[in-house]
């Protein structure tokens, strides 16, 4: 049983061709072997009968011939009679006994074996293990006067069996060969569709080409399988095509988007830079007119001119901010930056605004980060500046805190300003989105800059606020930007 299981496992991995060949060889061998066994068995039976008849007849002849010698007790004549048996090469021994049991004459095929076979009563042909023993009374006038006993070997039977065996083996070999040859086409009929299908499957999976179809070569189960497989391929091909198209469309859209983003950035940069120059002329020369009183000094004229100057001032701020926004993506070198110094610089830039509004800005102790100072100063400056700009009736009190949030650094700028309604919490980060009219100046780009800076470093920014309750702008910086006092950098632990 175990052997069978073992064989099963071995055979299982054979290719289909080999398996079929094995089946053909096994069945042919079994059939031929069975037939051979039948023939050998029946021949043995037939030969045994033949041998019995033959030995009976032979012993009859010898007994009849030796009657005279026995009657006259002539050992010489008896020996001569027996020596005629030399022609029968399978005869091992032959002896003629007198009626008193003594040996009158004997014949031995070889000297090595010179023992007379035992005599028996009456005619007996006994098939022993190694030889056939024949015993026959020698009669004279129907009266026994002695006994003839012979020992005959099975050599002839073995010869026959050897010939039969050889023939059977030869027939077996030839029939196996013939079966293998004649079944080739038949086996191909079975294996070819499978092999072709396997080739198709391999080709599809290797090239990922779902346009390939399997060839239907037969109408049997393989044909059904091939049809089903082709059907499946068609569906996959359709899906693949759809997917490819969708992917290509998306790629194209992404490219267009990237291109248009790039164009927009370039435009913003060029526009913010090139518009600044003519604007500067308008602004400065208008101020010159105003200062030098080159136009009539009626209150109306003065008001008009001051409106122009205000307009140019606002536009100047707008262009400056736009330019800062456009420049954020320009390459910049990352250095170790002390956030305490960054905040000091931002506060310094806002000095006038802080003093005018009597604002109090406090802060935690900050760490150093690996970043570009030119990104971080506007970030803090915009957040602090906004906290002052959108103040409530109270004097602005602003606190900048720092905490660890998992692996990130979490920085919050909290104010006691007018607060922001929840529906505007995400809108305020959109460029040029403003919640106020010209009564509070601004370009609407400050928070967009903040968001862009924070996102550039892989962080997030959001606001927590309610109208009348102040605002807290929170942003995160990834912990791996942190630089510790010993100069090592890494995550927050």
């Amino acid at each position, binding site marked *: 049983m175990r052997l069978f299981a073992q064989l099963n496992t071995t055979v299982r991995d054979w290719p289909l061709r080999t398996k079929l060949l094995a089946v053909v060889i096994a069945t042919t061998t079994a059939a031929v072997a069975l037939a051979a066994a039948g023939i050998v068995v029946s021949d043995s039976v037939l030969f045994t009968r033949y041998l019995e008849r033959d030995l009976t007849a032979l012993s009859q002849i010898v007994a009849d011939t030796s009657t005279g010698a026995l009657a006259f007790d002539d050992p010489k004549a008896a020996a001569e009679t027996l020596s005629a048996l030399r022609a029968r090469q399978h005869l091992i021994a032959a002896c003629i006994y007198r009626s008193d049991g003594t040996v009158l004459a004997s014949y031995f095929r070889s000297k090595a074996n010179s023992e007379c076979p035992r005599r028996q009563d009456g005619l007996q042909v006994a098939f022993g293990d190694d030889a056939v023993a024949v015993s026959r009374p020698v009669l004279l006038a129907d009266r026994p006067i002695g006994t003839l006993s012979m020992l005959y070997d099975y050599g002839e039977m073995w010869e026959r069996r050897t010939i039969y065996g050889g023939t059977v083996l030869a027939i077996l070999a030839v029939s196996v060969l013939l079966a293998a040859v004649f079944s080739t086409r038949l086996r191909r009929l079975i294996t070819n569709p499978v092999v072709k299908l396997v080739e198709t499957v391999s080709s599809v999976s290797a090239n990922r080409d779902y346009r390939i179809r399997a060839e239907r070569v037969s109408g049997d189960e393989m044909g059904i399988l091939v049809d089903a497989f082709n059907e499946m391929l068609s569906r996959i091909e359709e899906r693949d095509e759809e997917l490819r198209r969708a992917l290509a469309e998306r790629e194209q859209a992404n490219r267009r988007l990237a291109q248009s983003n790039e164009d927009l950035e370039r435009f913003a940069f060029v526009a913010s830079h090139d518009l600044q120059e003519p604007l500067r*002329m308008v*602004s*400065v020369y208008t101020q*010159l007119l105003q200062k030098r009183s080159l136009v009539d000094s009626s209150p109306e004229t003065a008001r008009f001119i001051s409106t122009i100057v205000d307009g140019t001032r606002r536009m100047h701020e707008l262009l400056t901010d736009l330019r800062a926004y456009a420049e954020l993506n320009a390459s910049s070198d990352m250095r170790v930056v002390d956030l305490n110094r960054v905040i000091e610089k931002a506060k310094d830039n806002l000095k006038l605004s802080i003093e005018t509004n009597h604002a109090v800005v406090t802060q935690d102790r900050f760490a150093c980060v690996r970043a570009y100072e030119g990104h971080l100063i506007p970030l803090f400056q915009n957040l602090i500046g906004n906290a002052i700009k959108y103040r409530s009736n109270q004097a602005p009190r602003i606190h900048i805190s720092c905490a660890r949030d998992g692996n990130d650094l979490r920085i919050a700028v909290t104010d006691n300003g007018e607060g922001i309604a929840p529906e505007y919490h995400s809108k305020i980060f959109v460029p040029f989105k403003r919640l106020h009219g010209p009564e509070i100046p601004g370009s609407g780009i400050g928070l967009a800059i903040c968001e862009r800076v924070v996102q550039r470093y892989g962080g997030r920014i959001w606001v927590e606020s309610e109208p009348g309750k102040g605002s807290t702008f929170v942003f995160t910086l990834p912990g791996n930007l942190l630089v510790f006092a010993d100069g090592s950098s890494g995550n927050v632990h």
Partner: protein
Amino acid sequence: MFGGKYTVLIIEDNAADVQLLRLTFEDVHLNCDLIVVTDGEQALAWVRDQPADSGARLPDLAIVDLNLPKHDGVEVLSAMRKNSALAGLPILVLSSSPRPSDVARVSAFPNTRYATKPSFLEAYGEIAETVRQMLELSR
């Protein structure tokens, strides 16, 4: 004021900017002659024409715009610093572009300061003040 009139070389393509400088100097009663060169090529030619050790009257200060036609301001600055007659000339770079990269390029030159062209008239006072300081230092 000490030593009479100054001579200031202005390398600037925008006539309106030259006019503004003129007015500014007038405003603060800075008594000076202006030599105006309006593009990079002329500026380089002017630099070449200043022979070393000629004893000729050289300007006391150069005001150079960075964004010039034909050759940019940095090329002009390099040419000036290579000319031994002009090597020590105080230079004020007055540019509309406050890009850090420009500031860095300019700061490599000795005796050279950088200022952004003001967008508002009131800031011209600071420019005039800077010019006056540089002129007085050069005396």
